[in-house]
């Protein structure tokens, strides 16, 4: 059905960005715009869910282009809605957190920070809602450009070097994406997403399909699959809220979202089977899952370890989609919001530690659990979820992924083994952090000399991470929070035509 809602959703962060610039001398008003925009946007996104659950898509065509069959416009289906809900709900919390974090650290250039942040969210929501590859590309490039000032926020030579790396990878990815989108358009005459894939692709020679798919994958380097992942750890020089929302949720999930779109909505399940591309994708994902975890173990910098953990977890989603089974895709789609909530908690905790103690290395964090009990409690909950243990949401999505893996006929158990091994590795790199934080004797200055005094981060910092941690549990107890379960079911029904 035709509704203006997608347009209003997209306008929220855009207008906020436009309002932030003139109010640069009034910090409270400036941050007020962000918060207001995020709240309005989330309620608008949520208001679309009931309609979508009726089995409809919400369409809004912005304008027709001169190219036949390409419109720039939005079409919100269940899958897009899941990503939109994840991003927009977390944006509220991260905006609040940003205020606490940026002010506590007295960061410079805050106006630029909030402005670019709004634009990045604008891009991410645009990706979630877009109706076709062409529209998606436009928003993809907006994400890339607008996150650059955030990555190099510190403006130190190190940050600039990291920013350049980030930019080179993502702009190259953009080039590949443009190439593959235009080629798809030329070969099929359309770029619209369709639940069963674009039919006209079926008549293309197989080698072209494979090359095209490779270009698409390179175009979605934002998903940080190995060996094209190194921009993500580099991007960790950004302030923590950026790492949290953008480099754990919005940007990287946009990449994964794109891959799932390609697998399920452009190529389609059948074509992926015929060409055996699913196997190639699954192997890449498995490789990334295992190797990413090993890299994570080797890191001493907390944010870098979390970044490698993100790389590994993103590939769960890719693997789930690549398996092409109902439960696999279900697990992949559920993992988008669930991983988002858990990983953002972890990053927000890492940021809170920086705010209070200024420490970034895990080895220096001995006894920090006593100093910052709430933060580290939230961290532990999220870590348990990442490992995939109940009672945290990660359990549900991993369970579905495992079920999906067993349903694959020849290599099912191989992929099951991969998932379980990776989970085991998750234990190896998360438990030591918790152990260090709670059970090791603090060395030197951490709690002051003598008595350890609890001095947790400011309320604006702790509250958001507590909320995300609580939600990680709520999602386990009540997966239909924010309609997530129903939306996933709806998406699966659309893809497989009824359960």
């Amino acid at each position, binding site marked *: 059905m035709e509704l203006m809602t997608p347009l209003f959703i997209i306008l929220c962060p855009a207008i906020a960005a436009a309002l932030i610039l003139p109010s640069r001398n009034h910090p409270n008003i400036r941050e007020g715009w962000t918060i207001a925009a995020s709240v309005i946007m989330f309620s608008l996104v949520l208001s679309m869910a009931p309609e979508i659950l009726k089995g409809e898509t919400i369409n809004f065509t912005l*304008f027709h282009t001169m190219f036949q069959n390409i419109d720039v416009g939005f079409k919100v289906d269940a899958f897009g809605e899941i990503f939109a809900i994840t991003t927009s709900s977390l944006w509220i919390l991260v905006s609040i957190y940003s205020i606490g974090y940026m002010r506590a650290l007295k960061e410079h250039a805050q106006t630029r920070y909030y402005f670019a942040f709004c634009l990045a969210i604008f891009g991410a929501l645009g990706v979630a809602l877009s109706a076709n590859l062409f529209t998606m590309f436009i928003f993809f490039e907006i994400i890339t450009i607008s996150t650059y000032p955030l990555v190099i926020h510190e403006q130190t030579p190190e940050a600039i070097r990291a920013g350049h790396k980030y*930019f080179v990878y993502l702009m190259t990815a953009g080039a590949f994406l443009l190439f593959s989108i235009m080629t798809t358009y030329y070969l099929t005459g359309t770029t619209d997403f369709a639940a069963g894939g674009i039919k006209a692709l079926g008549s293309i020679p197989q080698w072209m399909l494979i090359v095209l798919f490779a270009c698409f994958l390179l175009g979605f380097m934002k998903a940080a699959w190995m060996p094209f992942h190194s921009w993500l750890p580099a991007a960790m020089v950004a302030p923590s809220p950026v790492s949290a929302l953008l480099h754990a949720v919005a940007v990287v999930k946009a990449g994964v979202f794109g891959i799932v779109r390609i697998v399920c909505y452009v190529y389609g399940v059948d074509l992926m089977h015929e060409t055996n591309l699913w196997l190639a994708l699954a192997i890449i994902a498995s490789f990334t899952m295992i190797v990413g975890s090993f890299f994570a173990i080797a890191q001493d910098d907390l944010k870098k370890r979390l970044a490698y953990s993100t790389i590994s977890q993103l590939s769960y989603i890719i693997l789930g989609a690549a398996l092409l089974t109902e439960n696999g895709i279900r697990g992949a789609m559920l993992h988008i919001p669930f991983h988002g909530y858990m990983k953002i908690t972890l990053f927000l905790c890492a940021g809170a530690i920086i705010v209070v103690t200024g420490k970034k290395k895990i080895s220096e964090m001995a006894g920090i659990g006593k100093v910052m009990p709430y933060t580290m409690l939230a961290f532990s909950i999220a870590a348990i979820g990442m490992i995939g243990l109940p009672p945290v949401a990660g359990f549900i999505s991993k369970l579905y992924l495992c079920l999906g893996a067993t349903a694959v006929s020849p290599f099912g158990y191989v992929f099951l083994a991969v998932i379980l091994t990776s989970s085991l590795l998750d234990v190896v790199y998360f438990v030591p952090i918790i152990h260090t934080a709670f059970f090791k004797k603090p060395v030197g200055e951490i709690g002051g000399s003598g008595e350890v005094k609890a001095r947790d981060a400011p309320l604006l910092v702790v509250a958001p991470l507590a909320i995300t941690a609580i939600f990680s549990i709520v999602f386990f107890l009540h997966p239909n929070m924010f309609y997530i379960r129903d939306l996933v079911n709806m998406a699966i029904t659309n893809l497989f035509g009824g359960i």
Partner: protein
Amino acid sequence: MLPVEQFPVLIVGLSMFMAYTMLLAGYLNRKLPFFMTLAMNSFVFILSLFILNHVLTVGPIRYWQGGWRPPWGIEYVVDAMNAYLLVIVVSIVILGLIYSKRNVEHEIELQKHVTFYVLVQLMICGLYGITITGDLFNMFIWLEIASLTAYALIAVAGARALRPALNYVIMGSIGACFYIFGVCWLYSVTGTLNFADMRLLLPLVYDNHAVQMAFAMMVVGVMIKAYIFPLHFWQPDVYTYAPSTISSLMASIHVKVMFYILIRMWFSVFTLDFIRQFVGLDMLICWVAAIAILVGSIWAIKQRNLRRMLAYSSISQMGYLLLGLGLSLFSPWGLVGVVAHILNHAIGKGCLFMSAGAISQQEGLRDVRDFTGLGKKIPYAGAAFTIASLSMIGIPPTAGFASKVFLIIASLDAGQYPFVIILILSGLLNLVYFWRVIDQMYFKKPEETKDVAVTKEITRKLPLSMAAPMLILASLCIIMGIIWLTEIPQPLINQILLNLRMGVTI
């Protein structure tokens, strides 16, 4: 009812008349010529809008000078293509003139102001003439007027600009000679100089070697004027040392009008059938263009002087236009790319040269490495530069993205994947050199140990008359980027395709 059919001749006639009146008025008051040329061109702007409207609603305008019927008399023909070009030229001229006011006061000695503006007005008049004429020889006249004044305007900067100007005089004259030789041979074979007449007569003598040679000479001549690789070598020095106003006018419209001559040759005199009979010429042109795109960008990456970098970037962008022209042999989208890129590059490069001029005027800086912290010092020029460079790189939704997509579709239509890759690669190369500047301006921290020259006067605020044109062009980069993607320009483009006899519409 307005006599719109008379407007084309009114434009060139009045412009020429105004140029000489300005010289006289300059004796009375040195400030008058600027206002006179501004008023004149604003008037032309209104006329050009009427012309565009008339062309799109009624049809092409044909004006016979002195009532002499063509092919004996000189005919002025305005169809959708040149009406569109005319509007672009006039708009940029007006913005450029507004920008020039304070810039010229800064860069050029007071006693030269009168002649400067007279020459500018004459150059503009020449550009108008090229744009609306329908006669090969008449086009040569206007071409020379536009070029001779340009030589002088470059030399106005004095000192370092003299050598480049001399270079340009020599190269430009060679180009003009090539062109006029071609015209002579065509005249000797066909006995006519009128475009439309020539187009009718030429098919009979397509295999005549004189005609083929004439084509080659005219193309080479225009290629020198439009600095298309590999005939570009006079250009970087000129753009680096010319007055800022002239650089921005030349890079944005002067070269577009030169390129327009090529478009006319291509479609209205020789037609695509003529070009298609040379097997392999189509691919040759495309590959020359592709090499131009890459080589221009790579040279630009090597430059440290901002204006020289922009100059090489222009060479690369002219490659886009030539590629579009080559691809138009296969697909109408090639021509659409050319049409779009003429506008997109005009606004983008005009804006870039204007901000480069503002930077050197306000801060005295030319070397990109010294730009640290400029984003704070001259925010408007910085913002304009950033947006225009995004357009050059081709980030959606800026204008450059639209041209890139049009050309990519044209290459795909032609079945030439290498050009798709080259176009996309060129975007990345552009990113390298433009982003370096943006990085310096906004993100690199100034080195605190290095003591800044204390002698420097307190930074003056950028005058509004310089900031406004830049910002208008920068916002046009985004507005046009969106408009090109929508259906709005479709009627115009279809009309152009029709007038240039592509035989297809989109």
